[in-house]
């Protein structure tokens, strides 16, 4: 970040300190324990456990033995990598961190301040609920013009599984969904000559872009379109219903989108994002990543979220 004069820089620095302290105090008082994320990660190890990281965008450094290290592009991966390999069965970790992530953004190296929460070893809907509530509590301290989008990608994953498409077809479809390209999706599905599944599943997939907005609207739409519902899909909807009821107790600014493709390939189940009106990047994102831990040999339930401090401070500046 560049400043015109010292006064501006010092004032920014002070505000960042206060903002950070407010959030850290809030989390500390809720019983979260602070961990300091490491700045360096091993390049090979990191990129093999987290395929979503664009290798080109990582910032590489060499140590004196010639091994390639990177400056951490994602704190969650680092924390999982730190604790999960030594996991003992009855451990529960309720952690929070403050750290920086580094990425090449085409122009230079972009440094991002992040505060986040990781709950490792905690399973169940109640944990999901509390995590989202904590996230909402933090965001709503700084603005009223926010929107939380909650999703569960098990719904979409189940439809895609039922549709039994090739990997290439799957990726094409995820692409259409990512860009909400309804006509493109319809044309693409129409052009696939033979399906290895019930046509009902394909119709359900074709209609999934309609399933966005209020949860009530989505549930009505599902009845109206009489799309296929498997046991898993039914379970997802019932879970969302309970979570919606709980979250509505503290805020009305909630929306859902069952077609949402999470760009983080480790999310598995509930995931959510926080937006603020007039700001063009998500301020917050998080979700459940149980299956991410399976690459260490055992599945450990885990959920977390991250707040983009460099974005939040812009709002903080405005509101003060």
């Amino acid at each position, binding site marked *: 970040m560049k400043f015109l004069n010292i006064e501006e820089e010092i004032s920014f620095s002070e505000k960042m300190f206060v903002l950070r302290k407010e959030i850290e105090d809030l989390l500390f008082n809720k019983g979260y324990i602070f961990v300091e994320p490491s700045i360096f990660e091993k390049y090979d190890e990191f990129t093999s456990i987290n395929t979503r990281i664009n290798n080109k965008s990582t910032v590489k450094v060499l140590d004196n033995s010639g091994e390639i290290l990177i400056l951490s592009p994602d704190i969650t991966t680092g924390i999982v990598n730190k604790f999960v390999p030594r996991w003992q069965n009855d451990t529960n970790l309720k952690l929070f961190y403050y750290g920086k992530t580094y990425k090449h953004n085409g122009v230079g190296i972009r440094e991002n301040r992040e505060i986040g929460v990781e709950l490792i070893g905690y399973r169940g809907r109640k944990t999901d609920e509390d995590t989202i509530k904590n996230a909402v509590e933090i965001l709503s301290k700084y603005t009223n013009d926010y*929107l939380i*989008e909650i999703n569960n990608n098990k719904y979409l994953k189940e439809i895609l599984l039922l549709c039994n498409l090739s990997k290439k077809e799957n990726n094409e479809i995820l692409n259409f969904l990512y*860009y*909400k*390209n*309804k*006509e*493109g999706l319809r044309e693409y599905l129409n052009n696939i000559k033979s399906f290895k599944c019930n046509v009902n599943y394909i119709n359900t997939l074709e209609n999934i872009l309609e399933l*966005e*907005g209020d949860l009530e609207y989505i549930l009505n739409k599902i009845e109206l379109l009489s799309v296929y519902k498997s046991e898993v899909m039914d379970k997802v909807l019932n879970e969302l219903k309970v979570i919606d009821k709980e979250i509505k107790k503290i805020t009305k600014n909630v*929306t859902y*989108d069952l077609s949402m493709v999470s760009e983080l390939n480790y999310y598995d189940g509930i995931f959510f994002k926080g*937006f603020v*009106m*007039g*700001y*063009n*990047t*998500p301020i917050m994102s998080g979700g459940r990543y149980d299956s991410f831990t399976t690459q260490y040999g055992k599945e450990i339930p885990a959920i977390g979220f991250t707040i983009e401090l460099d974005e939040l401070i812009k709002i903080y500046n405005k509101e003060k």
Partner: protein
Amino acid sequence: MSLSIAIPKGRLGEQTISMLQNAGIGKTIDEKSRKLVFEDKNKDIKFLLLKNSDVITYVENGIADIGISGKDMIMEQGADIYELYKMNIGKCKMSIAGIKGKKIFNENEVLKVATKFTETAKKYFLNKNQKIKIIKLNGSIELAPILGLSDVIVDIVETGNTLKANGLEVLEDMYNINAVVISNMISYKFKREKIKEIINIIRQEDLKFA
């Protein structure tokens, strides 16, 4: 909740404006004036008249909530935006053209391709395993093969008349192009109802062109 719509100048924009005005929206827009921003106070909508290649930039950065852009520009810029409705106007093709009879694919040759659409062309030929050298041009692309600057061109073809007049022909069609209603990803979440309403209005008018 107010909405801002980015409209490209030129024929695509004119068609869009007349669609909106047919539906009683944006009566204040006057393309002949030099103004670039118009407001429809009744509907609480702001219209921005922009250069067609800038529409995506304004929408991606959230200055405009939605916009009208060609699919060619969307593919080329690879922007993070929603493609909410594929329109029946602005129809044309993106094609490979060259001197009559020119063979495109040859694994022993590095094909010289002149185009405005460098990213789209790179991806297309990479998928087809054809080695190429891109020559970026901004206009009169048809001249490149004639004067020997390139082997082929990748360009938008509507009628093919310009190609014919310059002794070129379409060697292969790459993509169907059309106008698309695009939206900023975050605006869409906050203003979903209003954006859907506008798209329904556009759709009804647009279907007349189907």
